[in-house]
């Protein structure tokens, strides 16, 4: 497959000059995000931000070394849909980094209570799987991917189950309304890109062109309470410590915005599904 074209010299100088003057090609401010669009599918657990995240669950046998935990995995795929240079079944560096970052942000931060996925200790558990399909990418893939995964997981409903003695019953959607996952907190990613010789110009939500010209980048994952899950800065120019702290502050503001947006969208979707106000009665879930 053909290689992706690198930005030309004139493109490079023009973009960098503009950024150093505080201007961006699409007319945004340096600390301004593109408008985030989120839509949920008709099924539960489908969220689409030009990346598609699909959640699915099935009953399996837990890992022998962790008999009380369910299985939760996130897989991501970049295919020829993004650009012809991505090949099928040959993961690129971006894909590996994306998968690792999502893993650290969502799985290792304990956003999903895996113990609640256990049905019969050591014998049966839920295996929740998130499949992330990138449809199109123009920079800042990590933030949008993380948003999509969190949105899809919070939107997802798994079939209801009951245990009587030794027998486990999994109810179909027609028998009992599916139940949401036990979700503990919603971490989001905010990526900052640094430009300039000293790396002192901070730009958020970069486009693909800007992303190719950055000198360093740093991704913060945190929830709206300001609890940081991870910070990753993979190589690039060294950055002043004060700047990193400033970025963390900005990230918190951004994450609060993301949380509000997601909550609003989820409430909107719940209202759309709640035809005739029957949802409260259909739900077999216990009040916490």
């Amino acid at each position, binding site marked *: 497959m053909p290689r992706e074209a690198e930005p030309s010299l004139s493109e490079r100088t023009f973009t960098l000059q503009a950024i150093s003057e505080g201007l961006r090609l699409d007319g945004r401010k340096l600390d301004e995000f593109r408008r985030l669009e989120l839509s949920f599918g008709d099924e539960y657990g489908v969220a689409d931000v030009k990346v598609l995240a699909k959640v699915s669950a099935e009953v399996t046998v837990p890992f022998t070394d962790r008999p009380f935990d369910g299985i939760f995995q996130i897989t991501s795929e970049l295919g020829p849909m993004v650009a012809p240079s991505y090949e099928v079944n040959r993961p690129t560096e971006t894909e590996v980094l994306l998968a690792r970052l999502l893993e650290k942000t969502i799985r290792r931060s304990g956003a999903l209570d895996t113990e609640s996925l256990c049905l019969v200790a050591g014998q049966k558990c839920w295996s929740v799987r998130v499949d992330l399909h990138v449809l199109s990418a123009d920079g800042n893939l990590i933030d949008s991917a993380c948003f999509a995964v969190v949105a899809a997981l919070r939107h997802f409903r798994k079939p209801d189950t009951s245990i009587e003695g030794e027998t486990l019953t999994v109810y*179909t959607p027609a028998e009992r309304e599916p139940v949401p996952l036990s979700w503990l907190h919603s971490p989001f990613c905010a990526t900052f890109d640094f430009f300039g010789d000293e790396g002192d110009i901070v730009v958020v939500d970069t486009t693909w062109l800007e992303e190719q010209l950055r000198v360093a980048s740093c991704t913060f994952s945190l929830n709206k309470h300001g609890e940081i899950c991870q910070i990753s800065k993979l190589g690039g120019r060294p950055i002043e410590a004060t700047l990193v702290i400033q970025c963390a502050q900005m990230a918190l503001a951004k994450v609060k915005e993301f949380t509000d947006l997601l909550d609003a969208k989820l409430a909107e979707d719940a209202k759309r599904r709640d035809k005739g106000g029957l949802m409260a009665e259909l739900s077999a879930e216990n009040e916490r």
Partner: protein
Amino acid sequence: MAPPAAELSHLPKADGSANFSFGGYTITAAVNGPVEAQRRDENPFEALVDVNVRPAAGVGGTAERQLEAILQPALRHLIAIRNFPRCVVQVTLQVMEAPENAYVNSKVMQPRLNLGIIPSLLHAAMLGLLTAAIPLNTVASATCLAITNATAGTTIKVDPSPTEIDQATSVHVLGFTAGRDLLIAESEGSFTAEEWDRVLQTAENVCCRGQETGNDAEMGGYGAESENVLQFMRSVLEAKAAESLHWR
């Protein structure tokens, strides 16, 4: 059943892209091409058609490979491949949503042939190819039919739902080009030769309906039994072309 819906050129990076939804299925197609083929699979006389089906959940397995094997020869007949030697036309089909049977909890990792998805995949691929402006010999449409044996006799259901497919004795997918030539014929289940003849007749009527002008009204109008997808594709593309040429 809801009428088909489509969105064209919604992915900025791909040469052509389309989102097609009908009967609970939503498919996104991205088409890149003609691009240079890799050395190992280039053909000096014609373009290679590379079809890639991706499931919504899980990684693609044997079921997806089989769908690819059904679609790839069909698309090869449609694309003017001899115009582009040593090239490749990449068609990526991403399943976004598939209808679920509310009475059964489905397993993710169970490969199972799903004939019902083929029409949507083909239509999405067609729209993708058309928006990518890839020269085509002809256009095509397909339909899915299910035969149910009840005490009252056999009935043929066009565009069956997953529940109806589960109850059917045989499921058939037939595709026709705009010139009424048979392009795809896949069947599953047990059926007699007479039943297949009836299926062929019905499918031809469904796919090629309304090509003779004035026929539409007699058949009960647009959407009488199922949507005429070729007409739908034409109207969507006309709307898109009108929108794109609005500046003139």
